[in-house]
């Protein structure tokens, strides 16, 4: 198995590109702003918890919290819009229709349902590990969870930020709903990212301590073959492997990625523990 290579990607190996620099930058911005939004939003959601008051005081009170929250929100909105505009540009202008359907698309298809079913069978020792394509079903779930989460949390957040203008379009009672949805959807996002996503990509025995592909942009040949066998086989058959070849990531990039990822995990775990504590006490 490729566990040695997975935990030590700098080892001698062929590297293949998985994410473009643009995608890696968008994800890194998402990491920073999401952590910022969670750290400044959770104290508000659980405002009666002692740690919330402490945190609010530490950063300079509620006005500071709200400033950081709005700042991160604006940056993340821009991040989100760049991604959406990029998708629209690549499909409509560049006619890369494969982004909307097929093996290179994030849109779920029948194979994902089959993979999920097969994966559950594998979990229960009832069958072999499914052979995944470029994007696995849980990666698509992560993607759409974040996509719709950002849309819902964003719209409800901006509704409250610009409550006067919002209430001229719809009844003010929708602001009550906006606060509820904003808070609950955020809890879902925090729970999903800090537990499910972190486990899938970092803490899972085969990925521990973390998978840095999203930061460095490349994966080893072993990782490629094990994680995305269908895509690998297709590329090999079409003789496209050479085009996908990448330089090995420099040591500083690996170190930075690990540092960044580990910091995110630590912050996330601290926040999820605090959230669980406040949620159970509520």
């Amino acid at each position, binding site marked *: *198995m490729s*566990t040695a290579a997975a935990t030590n990607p700098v080892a001698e190996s062929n590297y293949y590109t998985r994410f473009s620099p643009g995608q890696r930058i968008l994800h890194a911005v998402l990491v920073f702003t999401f952590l910022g939004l969670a750290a400044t939003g959770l*104290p*508000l*959601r659980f*405002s*009666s918890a002692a740690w*919330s*008051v402490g945190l*609010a*005081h530490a950063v300079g*009170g*509620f*006005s500071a*919290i709200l400033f950081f929250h709005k700042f991160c929100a604006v940056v993340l909105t821009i991040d989100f819009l760049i991604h959406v505009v990029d998708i629209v540009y690549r499909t409509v202008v560049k006619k890369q229709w494969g982004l909307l359907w097929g093996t290179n698309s994030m849109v779920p298809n029948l194979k994902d349902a089959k993979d999920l079913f097969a994966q*559950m069978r*594998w*979990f*229960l*020792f009832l069958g072999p590990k499914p052979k995944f394509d470029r994007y696995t079903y*849980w990666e698509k*779930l992560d993607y759409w*969870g974040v996509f719709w989460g950002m849309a819902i949390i964003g719209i409800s957040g901006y509704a*409250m930020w610009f*409550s*006067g*203008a919002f*209430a*001229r379009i*719809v*009844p*003010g*009672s*929708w*602001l*009550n*709903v906006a*606060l*509820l*949805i904003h808070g*609950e*959807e955020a*809890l*879902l996002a925090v*729970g*999903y990212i800090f*537990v*499910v996503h972190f*486990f*899938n990509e970092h803490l*899972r*025995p*085969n990925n521990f301590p973390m998978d840095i592909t999203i930061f460095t942009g490349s994966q080893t040949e072993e990782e490629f073959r094990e994680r995305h066998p269908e895509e690998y086989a297709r590329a090999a058959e079409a003789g496209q492997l050479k085009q996908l070849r990448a330089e090995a990531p420099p040591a500083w990039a690996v170190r930075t990625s690990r540092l960044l990822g580990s910091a995110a995990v630590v912050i996330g775990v601290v926040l999820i523990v605090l959230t669980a504590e406040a949620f159970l006490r509520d």
Partner: protein
Amino acid sequence: MKLYVSAIFLSMFLIWPAAAWSAAAPDTLCLSCHDEKGSPFHASVHSSLGCTGCHTDIKAFPHPDNVAKVNCGACHSEAATALAGSVHAKASEQPCLSCHGDAHAIVDVKDPKSTVYPLNLPRTCGACHGNKKFAEEHHLPDVYSEYMDSIHGFALTKDGLLVAATCSSCHGSHDILAPTNPKSRTYRANVPATCGTCHEGIQQLYFAGIHGKQMEAGNAQAPVCTNCHTAHQISNVREVSFQMKTSATCGNCHRERFGTYRDTFHAQVSALGYVETAHCWDCHRAHDILPASDPKSTVAKANLVQTCGQCHSGVSASFVSYSPHADPHDGRQFPALHAASIFMNLLLASLLGFMALHTVLWFIRSHAERLNDKRRNS
């Protein structure tokens, strides 16, 4: 002749004390023994009365060992009657002196040296009421330190204001009655009038509001000034620490409304220690509180745009359909919110529940696979 003179001289010597006693000022005679009382007494408000003005039973020099207790009420009849009916009637053998101090050194109330001069009064009352043991024995609150830390106490001791309320401003002086006595200034129903002697404008607002009206109507649940402001530890209402506490104070009675307020943005912001958000009184007012059904109420439908507009800019008629007391559990009053709450709870429980299971199964399966690989490799 010589004998005649001698007889007169002798008779004078025998008669002189009696003759001298009958004179207007026998003080020099008293002071021949009680010298130390002379100077404070001459500076006192009672100096013109002379010793026997109060010690009326002393008619001769020297006087008998047992001297009657001075009756201040002989002159101060009004105060004495009031005191006799007060909680302090049996406070000590000579209750007047407990507050007025040394009997021979009593000065005018307007004299800054007087023990009952406003600036000195709390210390005088505090001699007993600042004593924890005394307070425990008499089942009284430890009011002295509370008062000294209050806005009234600070106004008196730090700002030196004679108009600041001291003990007697609220409790009276000689006629102090227990707060359970309906005639007492501090009896519940009399509190608004007592505070109103100084805070007249607030008293008017209070009686214009629902709390005052209910109190007048005899509702025992209706709060008076002290229910919200406390009796002795009264804070400056402009202090953030006080403002941060007040919503919970309203919540002592309005439990359900406080509960629904606590789930909203205003309360969340407030709980983080931010005072510039809506607290109960920002919308409902503090004293002239009226129910929403009253057209004059700040929370009457027609006035909401103005009330919300105190903080929010661009408030429209549509904006004020926002409920600062929305309750997601109340499906009848808040159907959309109720539905959203159920949907979100289901979404969270199902998605996180499924993914948690997915994660646990994956963890177990991955470990099993790794163990298997190790065995195969070795």
